[in-house]
């Protein structure tokens, strides 16, 4: 329990964390038409239920892109049926970075006090693309600092000695967090976001009103958590390799016994929008027709899909081999998420090229309650993953 002494001073009374049983996950700024996907989950007698799922009106202002914009406060509230005590915000931002890296590289970046934009977005412009597994082992040059960042750097005298797994830390106007991966070596999952964006997000849901933010996490990492309750995932003992297709990015994740052990982003691969645009242009369709064509078998889109999907499948095969060779993870279950249509073609191509059959389960599989199904549910993966990640974290704490 928190006791607020003054407006700025709050002390915590009682024990540490307790299990959260009622959490709303919100996918912010993910570009979904009609609002922000929100999923409220409640755990009752050990069973997870969907209390509410739907699109909520977005905040009045967009995510700030500078310290000056962040100074304008913006408060936001959710509809009543989403007003749980705690919220997990999955954030999409071009300034956000999520990726697997080494502890050494993370420390180097942290010491430089720089924040990096999404790895793929940066790497798409990088001529010298590494063909390595996608795990960065060297630090990147620091970006130019703004005056505000310089001021923040002056205030924050953080050192690498202060870095602890899972504990967010600020340096150079950037908020860092990393977690060690349960694998041999110093591999960590890292996320960074500009400090002004994080501070703006932390004030979005004000104190004393439901919900308040208990977690602000990148949408990308929230996607990795959305798989946790899948029946097929549980049936495979948590050993799986999954393909997450976002609007403009494609990620590959490896799980061993339910723990994330591999995360990479397919360099150069277009996301869902790019794939659908290619189909639309290749087959001369309207935008509305693409999904129905990908779901029906009347028109074969494979000639258009194969040039796009094949590199992704190849990277998936490389990742599978990496899991088998380095982590002794033989024949994991394989999934593809994030495709409202066309998952069957992904699976067929993967089966032909890599002898992998990709399952595309429902997003809300393994969770009880009334929830969106089919293509409609795809947009809720980020919100669901954010809520599941927070609930899983608090349960383990």
């Amino acid at each position, binding site marked *: 329990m928190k006791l607020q002494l003054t407006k700025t001073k709050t002390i915590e009374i009682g024990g540490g964390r307790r299990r959260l049983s009622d959490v709303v996950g919100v996918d912010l700024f993910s570009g979904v038409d009609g609002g922000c996907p929100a999923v409220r989950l409640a755990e009752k007698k050990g069973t997870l239920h969907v209390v509410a799922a739907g699109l909520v009106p977005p905040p009045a202002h967009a995510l700030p892109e500078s310290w000056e914009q962040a100074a304008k406060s913006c408060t936001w509230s959710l509809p009543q049926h989403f007003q749980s005590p705690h919220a997990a915000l999955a954030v999409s931002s071009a300034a956000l970075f999520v990726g697997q890296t080494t502890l050494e590289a993370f420390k180097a970046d942290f010491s430089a006090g720089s924040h990096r934009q999404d790895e793929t977005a940066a790497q798409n412009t990088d001529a010298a693309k590494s063909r390595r597994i996608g795990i960065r082992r060297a630090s990147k040059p620091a970006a130019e600092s703004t005056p505000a960042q310089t001021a923040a750097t002056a205030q924050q005298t953080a050192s690498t000695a202060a870095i*602890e797994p899972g504990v*967010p830390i600020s340096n150079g106007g950037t908020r860092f967090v990393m977690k060690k991966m349960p694998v041999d070596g110093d591999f960590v999952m890292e996320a960074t976001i500009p400090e002004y964006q994080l501070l703006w997000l932390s004030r979005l849901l004000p104190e*004393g009103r*439901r919900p308040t933010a208990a977690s602000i996490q990148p949408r990308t990492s929230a996607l990795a958590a959305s798989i946790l309750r899948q029946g097929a995932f549980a049936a495979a003992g948590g050993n799986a390799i999954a393909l997450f297709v976002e609007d403009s990015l494609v990620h590959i994740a490896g799980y061993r016994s339910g723990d994330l052990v591999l995360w990479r982003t397919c360099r150069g691969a277009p996301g869902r929008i790019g794939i659908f645009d290619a189909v639309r242009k290749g087959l001369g369709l309207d935008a509305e027709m693409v999904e129905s064509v990908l779901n029906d078998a009347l028109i074969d889109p494979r000639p258009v899909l194969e040039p796009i999907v094949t590199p992704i499948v190849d990277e998936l095969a490389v990742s599978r081999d990496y899991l088998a060779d380095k982590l002794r993870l033989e024949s994991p279950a394989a999934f593809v998420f994030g495709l409202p249509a066309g998952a069957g073609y992904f699976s067929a191509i993967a089966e032909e090229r890599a002898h992998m059959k990709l399952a595309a389960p429902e997003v809300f599989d393994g969770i009880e309650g009334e929830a969106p199904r089919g293509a409609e549910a795809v947009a809720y993966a980020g919100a669901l993953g954010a809520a599941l990640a927070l609930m899983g974290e608090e349960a383990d704490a």
Partner: protein
Amino acid sequence: MSAKAYHLNLLKASERVSSSPVRLRVMLPVLAMFAVAGAVVWWGSLLGRVLMAKSSIQTLQSEIDTRKAAYADVMEKMNLANELESELEQLEYYRGGCRSYGGVFTALAEVMPLKIQLTRLEIPPPPPQSLVPPGVLPGRPYTPLWGPTGNVESVSLVLAGRTPKETPIVSLMESLESDTFTNFISIVKDPRRSDQSPKVRSIRQDTSRRGEGSRMLAFEIEYRLKDRRFAK
């Protein structure tokens, strides 16, 4: 901290806020209200107890008022009873102090010599008792007592008569010292004592002009009878 690498929470613990924080600016007025409410309840209970005490006082007062007449009646009757009891007690004292002298006079007639003519047989009223408070020196001023303090009254018998000679008087006095009169007459022959009995007041030649008085002796003897004791 959990090892779940997929939860990359960028929010610091210090930045987490509660949807239902315990705010001092809320709790202090609430606590103050509770304190005031407690004080009001305490004062209320105190006031109630005072009112109850007052009402019970009024009830008792009215009961006292209603019983006052009866109480006065009872007290009056008790006073009357005490008075009557004291009167009765006094009467008892008087009854204890009653003396009958019929037997004395009957016996006196029996022993009266023939040569004596009784001219007066009197039991005079007792001398007044002293009302001087004890311890007052003679000649000093004092406040007299309200009444006698003793319950013993001395009684005397005066015999006056005439006789031609002394012998019958001596015979009478001897007769009165006999056992017949022991229960009635005290005999104390010591002349130094104040309660001497018999006390010859006078014996002289009769001076009355009529008859043969010049040849007669007139005498007056006082005997002390047994004291009257006003006691039960």
